[in-house]
């Protein structure tokens, strides 16, 4: 604004000077360019002022800008720490060896209570297991056949197209076996919980040896600060060495938690690797198109942008 208002007087002066030669008058922007540049000290002052404003705002945010929670931390659940998950980065895939270990943890530990209803045996093929491995694993389980000619259901060994069987027949059976608490299905657990991977990892590794003094733990419940309400029906399940990894990785609690969380993230987002790969293609293609569009726009507009605007006032007859 300042620059523009400063412009006004000189440009009018120029206009007055060149009143006589109408044909050669330049457009006002070109004529005003030298006046538009402000003194250097103004730029410095403005930059410093902006930096000071931004800096003080950042400092204030650092001091007081933390989110205010209306519920108590116990009701909300302790906020999980942010862990450096490699697979969450834009340019990284799942670690498929970790997925394989995580599936082992799921099978040997979690699967006794938690279902994984949305994941079929076929989806492991080519991701962390071979066809033969998965066929063998599927065949270990029995599934109902279609009704035969007599209308009876028979049992058959599992096929690749079958889904991982649930540990309980139905929700009621699951509740009955777990003191009234329903172990949630784990297929979407990473997407379906605030905090995702960080939350599940913190929950699995966050059981204290004994509840802190003053904590209210109901009968049959366990204390976990990360669980909303802190009372969780699931006890700590991961202990060092509870699983023996086939690749020889030391099965510490945090190693198992990390592997199973990554596996559960795969089961929630099996498309992630493909998605990111397609994303890189899309970005490459679109940035190319964007660049072309900028050049073409500039090419098409250059005659307009460089045209000269001339004002020819009506010539009054001289007296």
């Amino acid at each position, binding site marked *: *604004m300042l620059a523009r208002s400063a412009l006004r007087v000189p440009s009018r002066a120029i206009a007055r000077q060149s009143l006589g030669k109408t044909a050669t008058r330049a457009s006002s922007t070109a004529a005003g360019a030298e006046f538009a540049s402000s003194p250097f000290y103004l730029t410095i002052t403005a930059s410093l002022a902006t930096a000071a404003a931004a800096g003080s705002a950042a400092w204030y945010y650092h001091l007081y800008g933390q989110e205010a*929670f*209306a*519920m108590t931390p116990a*009701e*909300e659940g302790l906020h999980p720490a942010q862990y450096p998950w490699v697979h969450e980065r*834009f340019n990284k895939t799942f670690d498929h060896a970790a997925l394989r270990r995580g599936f082992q943890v799921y099978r040997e530990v979690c699967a006794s209570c938690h279902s994984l209803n*949305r994941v079929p045996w076929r*989806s492991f093929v080519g991701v962390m297991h071979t066809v033969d491995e998965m066929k063998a694993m599927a065949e270990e389980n029995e599934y109902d056949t279609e009704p035969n000619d007599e209308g009876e259901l028979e049992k058959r060994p599992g096929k690749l197209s079958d889904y991982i069987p649930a540990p309980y027949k139905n929700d009621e059976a699951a509740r009955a076996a777990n003191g009234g608490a329903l172990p949630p299905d784990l*297929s*979407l657990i990473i*997407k*379906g*919980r*605030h905090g*995702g991977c960080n939350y599940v990892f913190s929950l699995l590794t966050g059981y204290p040896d004994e509840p802190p003094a003053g904590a209210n733990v109901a009968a049959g419940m366990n204390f976990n600060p990360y669980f*909303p309400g802190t009372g969780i029906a699931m006890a700590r399940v991961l202990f060092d060495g509870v699983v023996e990894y086939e690749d020889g990785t030391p099965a510490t609690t945090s190693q198992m938690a990390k592997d199973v969380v990554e596996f559960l993230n795969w089961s*929630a987002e*099996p*498309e992630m690797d493909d*998605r*990111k790969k*397609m*994303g*890189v293609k*899309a*970005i490459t293609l*679109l*940035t190319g*198109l*964007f660049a072309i*569009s*900028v050049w*073409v*726009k500039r090419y*098409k*507009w250059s005659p*307009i942008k460089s045209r000269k605007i001339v004002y020819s006032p009506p010539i009054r007859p001289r007296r």
Partner: protein
Amino acid sequence: MRIFKNHPLLKIVNSYLVDSPQPANLSYLWNFGSLLAVCLGIQIVTGVTLAMHYTPSILEAFNSVEHIMRDVNNGWLVRYLHSNTASAFFFLVYLHIGRGLYYGSYKSPRTLTWAIGTVIFIVMMATAFLGYVLPYGQMSLWGATVITNLMSAIPWIGQDIVEFIWGGFSVNDATLNRFFSLHFLLPFVLAALVIMHLIAMHDTVGSGNPLGISGNYDRLPFAPYFIFKDLVTIFIFFIVLSIFVFFMPNVLGDSENYVVANPMQTPPAIVPEWYLLPFYAILRSIPNKLLGVIAMFSAILALLAMPITDLSKLRGMQFRPLSKIAFYAFIANFLILMQLGAKHVETPFIEFGQISTVLYFAHFFVIVPVISIIENSLVELATKKQ
């Protein structure tokens, strides 16, 4: 190309998108219209595709969405495009409305365009809400319950209307089916409204321009100048959309919606999608239910008051510094409302919400008319002196 001038349909295309003369000084802020048209196109194409695999039943809806995500070829791409473009649609429509407020696009002779635009905005919100219910996660069910229950605030017949909308005594199978049906229908209503929006603009004086003066001094044909200018922002939009769709598709959604709807369990906080939060904050700021609902709807309808309450003799704020301050204060207040909508209803957020609500309405009905009168007087004083 003579066919473009003679053909009864093509000549309409010609007069809107090819030869249509546009003011030469349009800035990039005039590109949101074409971007919004692209959004509507993406939504209709992806939406129709999703409908081919979706089952509107409370037992199967969630499963069918997961089926799309896992088993349908590139189904995840279609669904993530649909959900993220919905957010982009609102982001762009807010920018489009903001451009209109800043440059006085609502002033006569474009009042009709502005009014149709407000209707489009309301239909968009309805469509987005209906669509959010369809995956039938926890937030779908409880969001639907909260929003449909707003109607119960209507005196005498409120509860009957709510049950009429539900087709039962709670959100149920009938509700989901009719929401699906309406969610499929409304985008085409939107498309028709968009055409009306264009006709209303085209058949009066066309686009405004940043200077707020007549555009007739210098115009350029739409093709090639504005086609290629629009393409630049369309590709920027595609790049940003791709970053969301491919690398962080769920960042704008609530994880609660990946939990199957459970009528027996209320989620700890029922929060609408980010784009509805300012209006949700206004609703919650009013202690009385009926007045709250009225306030929420009038917050949108307040846009219709702009042509009346802006008394300024100049179009747009380019040369009105006081209005600029008021405008940016309004924007900041809107963003604050957006933050407050996601908070628990608790001190101090209740009080902040009430202050922001008062400010929101004051902008339309007090601040804008007062400032425009002041500025008119200042301009008059300045011109009289000379």
